């Protein structure tokens, strides 16, 4: 028996040399993903801090500007994203049980729901464009709030835009996961790529869970 063959039989092909076992490797990947997510929390945290300060300074302008957002579309999108988190969780579940077809189905469903979210988001962006609510020289708003409403809409576009970028990246990750599920890289023993992709997807969902009330729901009662 050649050394290569002996080596290949010694451990699972997905096990990297510096780990003792797949179990240990999986724990390390989970931890690594969480460390990355901490940087993401603080990345979005800076934007949330900016939002907090300006809303504190100009509460009336923020409430008036927030009122211009479509709460129905925002709510529908929240439901779409929560549903995509469910399909993602079920994809991880299927991966852990080695149910390849079910895993691929749930990955595709997750991607479709992500695309629906982005579609609805682009409809909203289009409405804002038509209504002249894009910050800049063409911005139109009630005269007393025109300056500070631009701050709200700047934050709205930056925060939802960066969130949407994360969704696009997420769909890209799901495509790779779909490929790996299809070609047999993902098995019952080696499901951690699906698990950590799931962590990323759920994180993006959590960002939206905070964006939705802060952008769409403030001052809803006052107008």
């Amino acid at each position, binding site marked *: 028996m050649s050394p290569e063959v002996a080596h290949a039989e010694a451990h699972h092909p997905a096990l990297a040399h510096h780990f003792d076992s797949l179990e240990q490797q999986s724990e390390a990947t989970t931890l690594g993903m969480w460390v990355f997510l901490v940087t993401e929390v603080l990345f979005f945290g800076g934007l949330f801090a900016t939002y907090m300060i300006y809303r504190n300074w100009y509460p009336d302008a923020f409430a008036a500007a927030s009122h211009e957002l479509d709460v129905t579309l925002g709510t529908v999108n929240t439901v779409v994203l929560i549903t995509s988190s469910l399909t993602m969780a079920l994809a991880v579940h299927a991966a852990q049980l080695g149910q390849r077809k079910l895993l691929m189905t749930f990955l595709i469903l997750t991607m479709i729901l992500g695309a629906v979210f982005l579609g609805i988001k682009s409809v909203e962006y289009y409405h804002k464009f038509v209504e002249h609510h894009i910050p800049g020289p063409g911005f139109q708003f009630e005269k007393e709030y025109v300056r500070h409403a631009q701050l709200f809409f700047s934050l709205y576009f930056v925060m939802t835009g960066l969130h949407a970028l994360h969704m696009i990246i997420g769909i890209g990750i799901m495509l790779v996961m779909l490929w790996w599920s299809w070609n047999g890289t993902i098995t019952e023993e080696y499901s951690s790529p699906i698990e950590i992709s799931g962590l990323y997807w759920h994180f993006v969902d959590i960002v939206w869970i905070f964006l939705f009330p802060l952008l769409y729901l403030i001052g809803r*009662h006052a107008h």
Partner: protein
Amino acid sequence: MSSHILPKRVYYTIFAILLFCTYLTVQIAFLDLGVLNTVAALAIATFKATIVVLFFMHVKYSTRLTWAVVLGSVFWLGILLALTLSDYLTRVWRTYG
């Protein structure tokens, strides 16, 4: 591979709670509660985020080291927001001095 495979009904239950919380937060937003509107919205959002982290992201069943990292993110976010506020909220104090 993974040591903790949750039964599917856990995911369905969390999903149902998340949907109910979304309904609740939208309904509350249309009532005039003053400052409590923001408090309620953030409380519901934090609750939703917590159950997503614990169950969808399996942190409830993860190692202590993962727990430490997750709590660390909340802690550092807290520092970011609290120290920023400690500046901006106290600037008006100068007018009394």
